[in-house]
């Protein structure tokens, strides 16, 4: 991605995310009434975060690729099951992935 495009990503992300926050403070509470919209909105973070795990963990461009990252993810899953705190999960995944990367 070009340097200009990266500045555009940064600027637009900042502007849109702030606009959404401010919008919430400006519109009346009655807008919360639509139950379907609320249900869908509550599920969006789960769907997007799940897709991001896949996109970052087992995808290169448009191909599924199994590599050192998956070993890191497997350890992250184990750490989460063991109720490890967030920093431990991330560091354990990184260390595992780096080890597999160098051994390979």
């Amino acid at each position, binding site marked *: *991605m070009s340097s200009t*495009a*990266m500045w555009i*990503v*940064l600027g*637009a*992300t*900042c502007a849109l*995310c*702030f606009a*959404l*926050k*401010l*919008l*919430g*403070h400006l*519109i*009346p*509470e009655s*807008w*919360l009434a639509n139950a379907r919209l609320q*249900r869908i*909105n*509550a*599920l*969006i*973070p*789960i*769907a*997007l*975060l*799940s*897709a*991001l*795990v896949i*996109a970052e*963990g*087992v*995808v*290169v*461009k*448009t*191909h*599924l690729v199994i590599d*050192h990252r998956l070993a*890191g*993810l497997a350890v*992250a899953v184990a750490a989460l099951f063991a109720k490890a*705190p*967030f*920093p431990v*999960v991330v560091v*354990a*995944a*990184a260390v595992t*992935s*780096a*080890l597999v*990367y*160098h051994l390979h």
Partner: protein
Amino acid sequence: MSNLTRSTVRDSLSVAVTVGTYGVAFGAASVAAGFSVLQSCLFSLLTFTGASQFAAVGVVASGGAAASAIAAAAMLGTRNALYGIQMAPLLNVKGWRRVMAAQITIDESTGVALTQAPLGVSAMREGFWITGLGVFLFWNVFTLLGALGAKALGNPASWGLDAAVPAAFLGLLWPRLQSNFLRLVAVASMVFAILITPWLPAGLPIIATTVVAVVFGWRAR
């Protein structure tokens, strides 16, 4: 300081410090995606909503288009609007204080405010402001540290940074999976993302997965 206030302050600060340290992971992920240290810090100062920030740099790192990165970040940011609708009547502020309140309207400040409900409105307000401002401070300091650290380390794969990013997403996702239904939505989203990945340009499968949220949220359960 009353006992009531002290427990609110303690809750707020413990959340602020814990969540703030995640900023290290963001700073590192952002630099690994090709953003500069300055750009990484601007993300945390101006966007200040973790999942959206991770999404924007994540899509860039995976070779996606700028529009995909921006759309994924904005979709994840819509929940802050819903938090704002809940928080505005509670905080009851105008002018620059409202702008400040909007910027710190995130998962954590809203969450702590709502859990203080049994202690009354003033404890809820206090929880919102202390948590929001506390996360803001720590999140930005730790973003800078993570970005500088990643810059010094060099090749992301060599230090496992390329696995730290999906692990961070998983860590953000995990606490949300409170029921079998929500776990089903997560698994369905992952399967859907895997199935459509070979057919769409990089980055687009992430946004396309919102379809799964629409399908599962359409009917009441």
